[in-house]
């Protein structure tokens, strides 16, 4: 089971849906790890879509499990890459070449979708027009509000900022521009009093 039902939260926390094919002149899909399942479902529901699709896929720890299956869909363009930073120049090029009518589909972890969405918004696509579907890990991309450093793949609350070392608690307050949730010092009022770390959503 790679779908997770996030509990209802505050208004800034992203809400994810299910990818569905929309009319458009071109289709750009970005996914990581189990996010491939959402693309496979999309392709199955919309025959012919993949012929006009550019797929950017980052298998992360899933190895060849999904990569092979995506290849069999024969998208117009398929890129399989080792990490988001490695894929980013390609994503930017695809967006800068695109025309209005481009449809963007994002699937996988929140960190991947958030960063790809930031690029798409920057390129001029309204946030509400970008489709997302969460699959796989509930790890979060966290910004330390104090030092501004980003800690990737945070799975516990509280956690230690990878940059400044403060103990941060995990908020649901989310910035699309940062593509990150906000981490705030948990022991500011009682220095050293840090509760034990728990898995997110455990």
């Amino acid at each position, binding site marked *: 089971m790679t779908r997770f039902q996030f509990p209802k939260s*505050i*208004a*800034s*926390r992203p809400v994810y849906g299910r990818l569905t094919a929309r009319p458009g002149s071109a289709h750009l899909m970005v996914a990581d790890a189990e996010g491939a399942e959402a693309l496979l479902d999309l392709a199955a529901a919309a025959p012919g879509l993949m012929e006009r699709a550019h797929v950017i896929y980052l298998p992360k720890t899933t190895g060849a499990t999904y990569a092979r299956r995506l290849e069999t869909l024969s998208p117009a363009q398929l890129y399989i890459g080792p990490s988001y930073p490695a894929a980013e120049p390609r994503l930017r090029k695809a967006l800068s070449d695109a025309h209005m009518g481009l449809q963007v589909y994002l699937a996988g972890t929140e960190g991947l979708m958030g960063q790809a969405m930031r690029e798409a918004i920057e390129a001029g696509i*309204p946030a*509400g027009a970008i489709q997302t579907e969460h699959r796989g890990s509930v790890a979060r991309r966290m*910004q330390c*509000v*104090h030092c*501004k450093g980003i800690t990737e793949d945070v799975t516990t609350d509280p956690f230690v900022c990878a940059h400044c070392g*403060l103990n941060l608690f995990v*908020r*649901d*307050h989310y*910035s*699309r*521009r*940062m593509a990150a949730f*906000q981490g*705030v*010092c948990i022991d*500011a*009022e*009682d*220095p050293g009093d840090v509760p034990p770390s728990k898995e997110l959503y455990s």
Partner: protein
Amino acid sequence: MTIQFKDETFHDDYTFRNSPWAIQRFPFPFHEDSYMYSVNLEPHLSLRPGSVFEKTFDVDEHYISEMKDRARVLANDPLRCQSLPHMTLAGWDLVELIMEAKARDYPDLFELHRDGDHWHWINKPLGIEQRFTFLDDSTLPCGPMEYITRQAQGDFALLDQREENLWMDAGMVTTQADWSLDFDIGMNFYEWHAPVPLAHEMGVFQRALKFLLNLQQGAPYRRLNWTMTVNPLLDTSPENYHKWGVQKTELTPENVGQKQYLRVELQSFFRLPRSNALVFPIRCYLIRLEDVVSVPKWGRRLHRVLRDLPVELATYKGFIRNRPMIVDFLSAYDDGAPTSPGIFPD
């Protein structure tokens, strides 16, 4: 009257004090003995000579020191002032709004001379004289919003209007009640208010947004908001929370009257003409409990409000841990007598 500007600090040694003049004109935020959210908006019209509601942008004895504190905060963290590229025009609208208002309301302190697009601005308290071309960014030392808000007390948020929503796409934020412009910039009205408890469920933000979307040019509105701060620290930012949060533990029954401050925001809302954006000035006024209780009506009322405030709000406003001590201090100034309606002293 001529304002006697003070030389004082809002950090470290905290030499900030209110004069008796500043105390009696303090914008006490409670019009009755209890508090709950409401869309408490009223037209931003001149009210009560001498009050903080008299002028479009109130200038008081703390002006020079507050502007020095802003410069200090910005030097430490330039991300407190940001403007997304499409907001430059709104920044110019703000330059015009503030310069015109200050020159009109305080002609002895500020002068604006205009010859077409050639403007000449004089700010006597800060010793600034600037000739520039209106709408030409290259003629100011920094962006237009930053330029003018380094010379105006209070925080400023510039809100772009589109998609039936308001988007916080620019701001100067150094005297905030614990929110981060750097994190919140680019968010819409519901998103940047997301952390506020209870109010969403009450529909407060829906009603407020609907009102603000229809706000008209030339017809500004205002409201008061409040929170509690230990020490007269203007810059209660999330960025520095790991440094100032510990001050909340320094209150004692002996020092609570001097160290605990009521923090009031005079928020106003203006439609900007060229950009169709809104500007949302958030002016912060601080007063310590000892000075609050020097006005008997305020002492009685603050005691009742803080004593009866729902836990969620006391938590959100950051004083839940010190509430018993604060209420205990204030109770000595509440004899149970009835209070008169409205915010002004009797």
